Structure formats: structure tokens, C-alpha cells
């Protein structure tokens, strides 16, 4: 028997069930309407953000651990339109504190209605100082208090956000900037090292950025992955030597009227560059002034980026080749009867003073820097094959492999090239008609100072990565000459300086060296009166610990390397021996005998 009102109960139950099912179906349907999908898409904005974390860029130290490049924190101030509620307050605060911002511009931007398909974040200013950000924070707090008091939504800086970001800084200012290069940090996504060590070691210094998803739901938050900072570098550069070189070079340019110049100091035994000054000087903290400092084709570092005709300093290479090959020995003589040497009976070669110097041995040829003698040695004694073989063994015609960006290299014109003529051999022997970089000269001459072993010039001494230090092992490039030849060359050039009572001589220290005066070619030939004045020297001769290369471009006080570059060499060495703690020869001899 059915209970009373059974049918009515059934109808009510059915109606309730149908209504429930209909409600559920409607809820499901609403979820798939375009409006709902749009809403869901919008909600993703609030679920979290995908963020790229950039590891801090590695620090660069000098050889004694002084910081040459590191990071400080600057702030990016930006506007997130999604959260903006009070454009007026934002425009007022931003334009008052950040001078470069205009009230109306910020107000217009902050008043823009945010559209879903548009970028909602705009950068107002990059690398704002910590002090200014602290002021903004103070204003924000004050506004929050006022809102509480007035129970209103204004004033508010909601939407104005600041995030810390890495900013490269060079505490020594322009010191060593030509070696360091710079880091163009303004655009964080495309920032990279430019020139010098910053470019050559960019990948190591940068580290590996990682993109992570950061949910807003606290249940989903996880610890961020450990991101290793970029590797740090210890350079071979000594900041005291570097400063001394830069000051000496600047004084030398002021005194000589030169257009530019470079001085390099290297350790011939390891190839380590101890200092490398190059004009113009540049403050990498203001790297945006790069184009004003280096207009046109001005090289960033002329020590590695400029090839030039070195002049007579190159005779060191020619003479080393002649002695090492056996084509000449110290007693070989040349009779400079007329002061002219005819190449293939067509082209005359003259001495620097157009004079005749009579019978000279090889030491005399170097001492008086006789072009005719060196042309004779190259053409009649060495011959083109042997001469260019030695030049290539000394590394000319290819890069030295120094770990700095933008190394220039000028290919050698060899006898197998169509344009080569015998005159090239004659002029190349005394450093004309051939273009070399100062660093190539340093690497080649270091072989003579280092018993015939040529080392790869380098500026990085150690790399610190993942908490461990890797020391760079000096690399031998080649052994272009024998130790005996190297010692003979050192003795010959030391003797030449002493006999000439050269301005380059340094009290208490025996040094070897050679001057160079290179003519500068123009479109019409060697018609300019301006020259490249150079000097290359090393010492102490019994245990060479430094090679110094000086190049002054277009000096006006005198065209001669012996008058312009030699005194700069002396000046550098006098300061260098103190900074490198090298006792005078007599003191060292006493120490050895003790």
C-alpha cells in the first residue's frame, strides 16, 4: 500500500531533481562560454608569473686581489597598469623624485586603460639609486596611512613598482678600461660584455640565467633553484703598474704632442701582461659615452686593435733570424760605402740620416740602426724563404691569441703572393711595408728575452667558478730561435744601448732594447713628416723579468724613437723596478753570491 500523497511526493522529488540537474548543467555551460573563457584567461594573470633570474655577473680582480669590476644594485622603476588606481599621485611622486620624468608623460601613461592583449608593464626609469627608492617607499607608507585615516582609495602609488637589478660598476673608474672593456647593462635581456675581458669572457662572467614560474598560490610555492653566480676572474694586471703606465703615457703625450700611444709591460717568462695603457682613456661606468670617446675608427685598445708599421724595432727580429739561421754571425761585416743599397738595381734603400757608415759588424748595424745593412742581411744573407719563415715563427701574420676581444691582425705579404716584390723584403727587414700590432711585437720580443721561448700573451691568471679556483697555465707558442741566439741578441742590444749612451739606460739595471721610427704611409706613399716612435726593451739582462713596449703615434716634438720613446721607456722602467720589487743588479748579484 502506497503512503498518502505518494504521487505528490514523487512529483516534488522529480521537480527538485530536474532543477538540480539543470543548475549543474547551467554551471557547466557557463564555464565554456566565451566570457567565462576570457575570465579564466584573465585569472591566469593572478596565478603567478614567469620570471628569468639572472645570476650576478662575476667579479674581476687584479693580480693582487683588488676589485676592478663588480656589481652594485640599481633599481628599475616601472608601472604595472593592472594595479594603477591613482595616476595623479603616481605621476607626482615619480616626476618629483626622478628628474628625467615628466609629470604629464607619466600621468598619460598611468591613465592608459589596460587591454588584455597589450603589455601592461612599462619601465619608467632604470638604475635608480637606492636613496631615491627609499624615498619612494617612504611616500608609499605615508599614502597608506592617509588612506587609512580618510578611509578612501586615494592617494595611492599602487601600480608603481621597483625591482632591484644588477648594475656593473668599475670602482677604479677609467683605470684599465681598455683591458676590461665594459658591460652594457641597460637592456638586461640583451646585455653583454663589449671589448676587452668583458667580451672575451662574457659567457663565463654571465653564468646561466634560469626562467622559473613563481605561483601566487602559497600551497604551490617552492624554493627557487640555486643559481650559481658567474665566474670571477683574476687578471695578470697589477693595478699599481697599470696606473703608473697610464699616468706616464699621458705625461708623454702631453710632452711629445703625440696623437695617441700605448705602453705594454709583460712578463717574458709567462706571457702575463702586467699593464697595458692605451689612449684614449675611457670611464666604463659611463659606457654610453663610448661613441664620443672613440669617434670613427678609433680603436678601443690600440695595443691589440691597431696594426702599424713599426720601423726599426723590427730589426731585432731580422737580426735574430739571421743569427739563428747561421746566415750571419756577430763577426759578419757589411761595408756601407755609399749609404745606399740598391734592390734589384731599381729601388734605392737609404739610412735614416742618408749617410754612409763604412764597415760595420752586426752589432754596429744594430747600434746605428742601419737600414742598408738590414736590407743586405735580409736579401743577400737570409733570402725571402728563410726571412718569412722566421717572421711566421715569431707569430707575425696571425693573431697572438691574447684573451682580449677585437685583436687585429694584418696578413703578411709573402713571396707567393702576386703583389710581392723584392723591395718588400728589403723594407720589411727594417719594419716598413709590414703592419704589426704592439702585442705581436711584445710576444715576438719576449721570445728573445725568454731564451727563445715565445709565450702566449694573456691577461687572465685564474678563473674562480663554482667556488673553485683554476689557475691558467702559461702556454708556449713556439721556439723561434735558440737560447744561444736569444742571449746573443740580448747582449748585442744591451751593448748597443750602452755604447750609444742611450737615453733609455736605467741606473743600476742593465737593459737591452731597440728604438724604432716608422714612417707613416699616405695615399701618395711615405710623404708625411709624421712618424710612429717606438721603443722595445727588456731587463734585467741576466734574468729578464719585464718587456716594455712604447709606441707614440705622430709625436710633434721630434720624429725619432730615440728621442721620444726611449726616455719614456727609461721613465717606465725606473718606476717599474720599484713596483715589481726588482733590486738593482749589484744588489741581486750580492744576494746570489750570499
Amino acid at each position: 500500500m502506497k503512503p498518502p500523497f505518494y504521487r505528490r511526493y514523487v512529483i516534488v522529488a522529480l521537480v527538485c531533481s530536474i532543477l538540480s540537474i539543470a543548475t549543474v548543467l547551467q554551471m557547466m555551460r557557463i564555464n565554456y562560454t566565451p566570457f567565462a573563457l576570457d575570465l579564466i584567461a584573465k585569472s591566469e594573470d593572478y596565478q603567478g608569473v614567469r620570471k628569468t633570474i639572472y645570476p650576478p655577473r662575476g667579479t674581476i680582480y687584479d693580480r693582487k686581489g683588488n676589485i676592478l669590476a663588480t656589481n652594485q644594485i640599481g633599481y628599475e622603476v616601472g608601472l604595472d597598469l593592472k594595479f594603477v588606481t591613482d595616476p595623479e599621485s603616481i605621476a607626482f611622486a615619480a616626476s618629483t623624485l626622478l628628474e628625467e620624468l615628466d609629470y604629464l608623460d607619466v600621468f598619460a601613461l598611468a591613465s592608459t586603460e589596460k587591454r588584455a592583449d597589450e603589455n601592461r608593464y612599462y619601465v619608467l626609469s632604470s638604475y635608480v639609486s637606492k636613496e631615491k627608492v627609499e624615498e619612494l617607499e617612504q611616500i608609499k607608507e605615508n599614502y597608506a596611512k592617509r588612506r587609512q585615516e580618510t578611509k578612501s582609495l586615494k592617494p595611492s602609488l599602487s601600480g608603481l613598482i621597483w625591482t632591484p637589478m644588477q648594475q656593473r660598476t668599475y670602482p677604479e673608474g677609467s683605470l684599465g678600461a681598455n683591458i676590461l672593456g665594459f658591460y652594457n647593462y641597460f637592456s638586461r635581456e640583451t646585455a653583454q660584455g663589449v671589448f676587452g675581458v668583458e667580451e672575451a669572457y662574457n659567457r663565463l662572467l654571465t653564468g646561466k640565467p634560469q626562467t622559473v614560474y613563481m605561483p601566487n598560490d602559497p600551497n604551490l610555492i617552492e624554493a627557487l633553484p640555486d643559481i650559481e653566480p658567474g665566474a670571477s676572474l683574476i687578471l695578470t694586471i697589477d693595478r699599481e703598474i697599470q696606473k703608473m703606465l697610464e699616468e706616464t703615457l699621458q705625461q708623454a703625450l702631453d710632452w711629445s704632442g703625440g696623437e695617441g700611444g700605448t705602453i705594454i709591460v709583460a712578463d717574458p717568462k709567462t706571457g702575463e701582461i702586467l699593464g697595458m695603457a692605451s689612449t684614449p682613456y675611457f670611464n666604463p661606468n659611463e659606457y654610453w659615452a663610448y661613441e664620443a670617446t672613440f669617434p670613427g675608427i678609433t680603436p678601443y685598445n690600440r695595443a691589440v686593435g691597431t696594426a702599424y708599421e713599426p720601423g726599426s724595432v723590427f730589426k731585432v727580429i731580422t737580426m735574430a733570424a739571421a743569427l739563428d739561421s747561421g746566415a750571419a754571425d756577430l763577426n759578419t761585416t757589411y761595408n756601407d760605402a755609399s749609404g745606399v743599397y740598391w734592390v734589384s738595381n731599381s729601388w734605392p734603400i737609404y739610412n735614416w740620416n742618408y749617410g754612409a757608415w763604412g764597415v760595420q759588424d752586426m752589432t754596429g748595424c744594430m747600434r746605428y740602426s742601419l737600414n742598408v745593412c738590414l736590407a743586405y742581411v735580409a736579401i743577400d744573407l737570409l733570402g725571402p724563404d728563410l726571412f718569412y719563415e722566421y717572421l711566421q715563427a715569431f707569430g707575425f701574420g696571425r693573431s697572438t691569441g691574447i684573451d682580449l676581444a677585437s685583436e687585429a691582425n694584418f696578413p703578411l705579404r709573402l713571396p707567393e703572393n702576386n703583389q710581392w716584390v723584392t723591395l718588400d723584403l728589403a723594407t720589411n727587414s727594417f719594419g716598413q711595408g709590414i703592419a704589426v700590432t704592439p702585442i705581436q711585437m711584445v710576444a715576438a720580443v719576449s721570445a728573445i728575452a725568454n731564451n727563445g721561448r715565445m709565450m702566449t700573451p694573456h691577461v687572465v691568471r685564474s678563473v674562480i667558478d663554482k667556488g673553485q679556483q683554476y689557475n691558467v697555465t702559461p702556454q708556449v707558442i713556439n721556439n723561434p730561435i735558440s737560447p744561444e741566439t736569444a742571449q746573443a741578441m740580448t747582449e748585442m742590444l744591451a751593448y748597443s744601448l750602452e755604447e750609444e749612451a742611450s737615453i733609455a739606460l736605467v741606473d743600476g739595471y742593465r737593459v737591452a732594447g731597440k728604438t724604432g721610427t716608422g714612417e707613416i704611409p699616405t695615399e701618395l706613399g711615405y710623404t708625411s713628416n709624421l712618424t710612429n716612435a717606438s721603443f722595445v726593451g727588456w731587463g734585467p739582462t741576466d734574468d729578464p723579468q719585464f718587456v716594455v713596449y712604447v709606441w707614440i703615434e705622430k709625436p710633434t716634438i721630434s720624429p725619432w724613437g730615440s728621442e721620444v720613446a726611449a726616455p719614456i721607456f727609461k721613465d717606465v722602467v725606473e718606476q717599474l723596478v720599484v713596483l715589481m720589487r726588482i733590486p738593482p743588479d749589484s744588489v741581486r748579484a750580492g744576494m746570489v753570491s750570499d
Partner: protein
Amino acid sequence: MKNHILQAYKQAPWRIQIQWIGLFLLALVLVASITGVYLSISAQAAASGRKIQSLERQINNINNEIAELTAELATVRSIENMQSKAEALGFAPLNPREAVYLEIPGYNPHADLALAPPRVSIIAESPSVRAAYKISLWDWLVQNIWQAPLRESQLEGEVLP
């Protein structure tokens, strides 16, 4: 007769009701317990999440502060500043002719600067994760409950020098 027997063994209606109520309450307690545990864990996870965020922020701030202080120290110790301080203290650049050199046995002015430990090829096992977290519960029980007395007895039997 059959009905009589059934009636004799049939549960009293109130007992059946009590059983149903008991089952319902059991289910309710179970659901409440699971909900409670879930809520508690969720709350803990949320609190942990916020703590992680806060610690990450602290790490960031500390790293930023370290970077700031490092840069500041480097500026204070820059060669320009150090020279002017030295000059203010009455020091002057050394004249090579006035230099006095002393031989110090064992001193190597060209020694490599060490700012970090040298590279090592052996990578030690990370000690941060304890062994207990890397084995199953069963293995842990075997090791610590069943094998532990065995090890102790072995040790007791060993003859130590």
C-alpha cells in the same frame, strides 16, 4: 512457523537504527578527520610557502646588500683613494735610489693569489641529505630494528686492539 522463527532472530528496529546512526557518525568522523588533516596540512603548506617567499626575499636583500657593500669597499680601497690617504698620512712614492732591499728566505712575491680553494677532482657525496631520507621505510626498519641488535652483538664479540 517460519515467520515466527524469523521474528525471533530479527534485530529489534531500534538496534538497526542505532547501527545506521553509528555508521553515519563513523563516516562523518572520518570525513571530518580527513578534512581536518587536509586543512591542517594545507595551512602548514601555505605558511611554509609564505615563509619560503619571505626567506627568498631575505636572501635577495642580503645578496643585494653584500653587492652594495662590496662595491662600496672596492671604491673606498681604489688606488686613487688609497694614494690620497697615503699622501695625507705623509707617505711619498719611493725613490729607487733610496730603496733598501732585504732578502727574506721563503718569500715569493710572484706567488699565485688564492681567492678560493683550488680545483679538486674528487666530488664528495653531499652530506646534506641524511641516509634515512634515501631509503624505504621497510629498509629503515630492517636496518635499525632487526639488524641493529645483530651489529651490536657483533661489536661486543670483536676483539679491539
